[in-house]
């Protein structure tokens, strides 16, 4: 698939991708003194990894491989506990040069300030242009860590990859996709609106089959009957799917007879960080592009 896709790369995106891949192995070469950064937010952490400035400590690190999946956490990354109850004593012994927070962890800031300089970044914000906030976050982090070139390269690389995915998808003429996460056997979260996933769908030129309103965070919680539609769509569900969900739904005529269920137009994708940044966006774009290519045969 990769070989096939290369022919769709434009020259500009290729250059961007090469610049990025040239920079990443020489991590630290841009900033002579490696900074010891602690991240209290996963969107910030994954951006740091992509910038080649991996954090030394991270909240809920033990859950990372389950919910963010890539990149795998380097072995030395220290787990500093729950986002709302950070292990300050442990963090202090690591002597971080910088502590990066998001509004979700701002209650911890007064205490964190006793350990080292704290900077708060906005990781989620409804914007006019898709992925505007993750791009801005990348540049802000790049500026802070004196890694502006890596930041620009990461943005260029992401844009190039997204463009490549878009080109791959354009040939397939995929149906609208219905993006959901199963909460139990009766309820789903349908993603849309201002969320990261919708941003990626917009960038890839994919149509979202969820047309009802979403909340300020880019999703809507609904009973599964809310998914009923005559249209030819593809259901894309993120893991984990609760073990009793699909067996229970198999007893429901409302579900069984749904055109996309009957036709088997259902895909299950590995987890993607929902309140993520550019790496999560790219991961989602790749996963859904490969999946749609796979089912298109």
């Amino acid at each position, binding site marked *: 698939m990769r070989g096939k896709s290369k022919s769709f790369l434009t020259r500009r995106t290729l250059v961007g991708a090469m610049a990025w891949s040239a920079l990443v192995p020489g991590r630290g070469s841009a900033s002579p003194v490696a900074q010891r950064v602690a991240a209290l937010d996963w969107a910030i952490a994954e951006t740091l990894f992509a910038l080649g400035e991996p954090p030394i400590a991270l909240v*809920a690190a033990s*859950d990372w491989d389950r919910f963010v999946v890539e990149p795998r956490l380097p072995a030395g990354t*220290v*787990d*500093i*506990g*729950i*986002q*709302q*109850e*950070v*292990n*300050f*004593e*442990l963090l202090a*012994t690591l002597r971080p040069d910088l502590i990066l927070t998001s*509004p*979700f962890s*701002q*209650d*911890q800031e*007064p*205490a*964190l300030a*006793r350990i080292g300089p704290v900077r708060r970044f906005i990781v*989620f914000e409804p914007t006019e242009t898709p992925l505007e906030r993750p791009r801005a976050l990348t540049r802000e982090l790049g500026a802070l860590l004196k890694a502006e070139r890596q930041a620009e390269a990461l943005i260029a690389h992401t844009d190039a990859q997204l463009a490549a995915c878009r080109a791959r998808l354009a040939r397939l003429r995929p149906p609208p996709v219905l993006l959901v996460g199963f*909460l*139990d056997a*009766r*309820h789903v*979260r349908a993603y849309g609106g201002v969320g990261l996933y919708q941003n990626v769908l917009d960038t890839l030129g994919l149509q979202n089959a969820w047309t*009802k*309103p*979403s*909340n300020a*965070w880019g*999703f*809507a*919680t609904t*009973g*599964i*009957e809310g998914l*009923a*539609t*005559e249209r030819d769509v593809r259901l894309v569900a993120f893991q984990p799917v*609760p*073990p*009793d969900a699909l*067996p*229970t739904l198999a*007893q*429901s*005529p*409302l*579900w069984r*007879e*749904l*055109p996309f269920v*009957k036709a088997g137009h259902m895909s299950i994708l590995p987890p993607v960080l929902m*309140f993520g940044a550019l790496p999560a966006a790219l991961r989602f774009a790749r996963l859904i592009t490969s999946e749609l290519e796979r089912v298109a045969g």
Partner: protein
Amino acid sequence: MTDGKEKLGPAPLALVLALIAGALVLAVVHEPLMALLRTPRDAGGYDAGRMVFLYATLPRLAMAVLCGAGLAVAGAIMQFVLRNPLASPTTLGVEAGARVALAIATVAAPGLLGLGRDLVAISGSAITTGLVFLLVRRRGFEPVATVIAGLIVGLFCGALAALLGLVEARQMTAVFLWGSGSLSQQSWVPFSGLALRLGVALLALLPLLRALAVLQLGDDGARGLGLSVTRLRVVAIAIASTMTAFVVSMVGVIGFVGLVAPALARLAGARRLGEQLAWSALLGALILLITDAAVQLFAGQLSEFLPTGAVTAVLGSPLLLFLVRRMKPSVPPSVAAPPGWNDPPAARAPVVLAGLGLLVVVALLVGRGPTGDWSLPFGSWSAVAVWRLPRILASAAAGALLALSGVVLQRLTRNELASPEVLGVSAGALLAVALSLLIFGQLGAAGDAVTAVCGGMVVLLLILALGRRSGFAPDHMLLAGIAVSALADALVGVLTAVGDPRAMRLLGWMSGSVAGVSLQAAVLTMLAALVALIAALVLRRWLEILPLGSEAARALGVNLPWARLSLLLLAALTSTAAMPILGPVTFIGLVAPHIVMTLGLRQSRSVLYAAAGTGAAIMVGADWLARTVSFPLQLPTGLVAALLGAPALMLLLNRRGRRS
């Protein structure tokens, strides 16, 4: 009550409710029904409107009727058997148990849910119902004590769910979704399954009905007829709580329907057991049908998911206040020193003090290093000075504050189950923070603290206003507090069930985190504890006299309303001062005074000192556990204290009950 009303019973009320329900149901089904009738049966292809109508809308309405009736019958049985107008699946902690069992299974063993949600739910509710029974068995199931025990168990379950939500942040929604029941359906399978289960439970109940009806004669009358009253009670309650668990396992917690429907049936004139059960079932079905149809109509306008269970809780909890006002105050066991009581010699005081000191030293020095190994911090005194000292001081001070508040409340209300949590001051603070988070967004730590104090004070004023009419009758104020707690719980439930990321911060605030407390804040809290102790010592004459009862107090020349008001203010201010440190749920205000009583202390001076010391010691211990037990994960100190405190409390109460 007129003869006409006696004869008609609840029929007029049921008719009015049925008309409202009919109108709402018509509004819900009108459009899809018309569409269904217009289109030919085999139009071919998938007709979403038709499928949703047949397999979602209709079973949902049927489910509302069934769940409403089931919960109402369960509530009616509980109220009848315990002779307690406030008993219900909600107030006895039955729903809380089922719900927290489901949450634990969701996070820890999702495979169990595949085996059967109802088994998980039944185990949970059996445990909590059993606990409540253990707590109040020795008090003859006295109504207010029973409901307070139910509340304690409910708060414990809430603390457990909050901890799960915090640790498993990414599964928060799944943890909380079943706490506010949603009636959403996709087939008739759950309906028929639940109908079958509830039917079997009712069949099991039938042979008991006759014997139960005899209970109306009073325990002695029933015994005279050769019945084992206790066994009868236990079996009937077991059936009722199993019915509740069936409903919760299908749709989640639908709070207060099981309280409101039987209460209305009785108020409207249903007398005999059979009548009460039948009318309760009908009224419960109609109430839930009306609520759910209204939610469906209204939620259509909203972009946000609105769980029906949260709505019934918000509407139902104020009704608890109304019911309270109609209740005769009861006489709870006294916390006063019996005549001629002598406290054990003060020789124990140095031992207790030394113990507290040793605990503080251990907590200061013993911790876990970066690799998780147990260590003494040789060479890293900064960890001790910067991090451990403030949190230990703050924990100790907050523990002492809550314990003092508990002592004052228990003596004031003459009820050994009183505490700041039960009074609703904590819940008021929580409600205020939740609302401010919803309306204004983020206020920061200082803003939250101010909001919390204001919320606590508003609830306090409300309870005072309510209490004035009854001359601050203790029961009434306690139950008003329970109603406020239920309201706060419902609101937090909506926020967390929807999965709003802001709910995570609310959970963090609720959980009582002392890890990052500053030395200044810790010292200030210490000073507050000192002031509270002095104030309580100054007022100790009242603390000594009030437990003797109002007649005795008046005879001794105490201005009762004034004394009660002052003590209530002291208790509320004291607990509010601890709130920014420990969050709303800890149980220290209950546990510490009980330990002191178990030690044999009764005189208010020694009780105050000992309770403050005990509260401080428990919190220091809880904080040390929170810091070390799951390293590197730090747990919130307030939640750890609650999880330790509730079982300790049950042990103490049970032991004391056995001795007396």
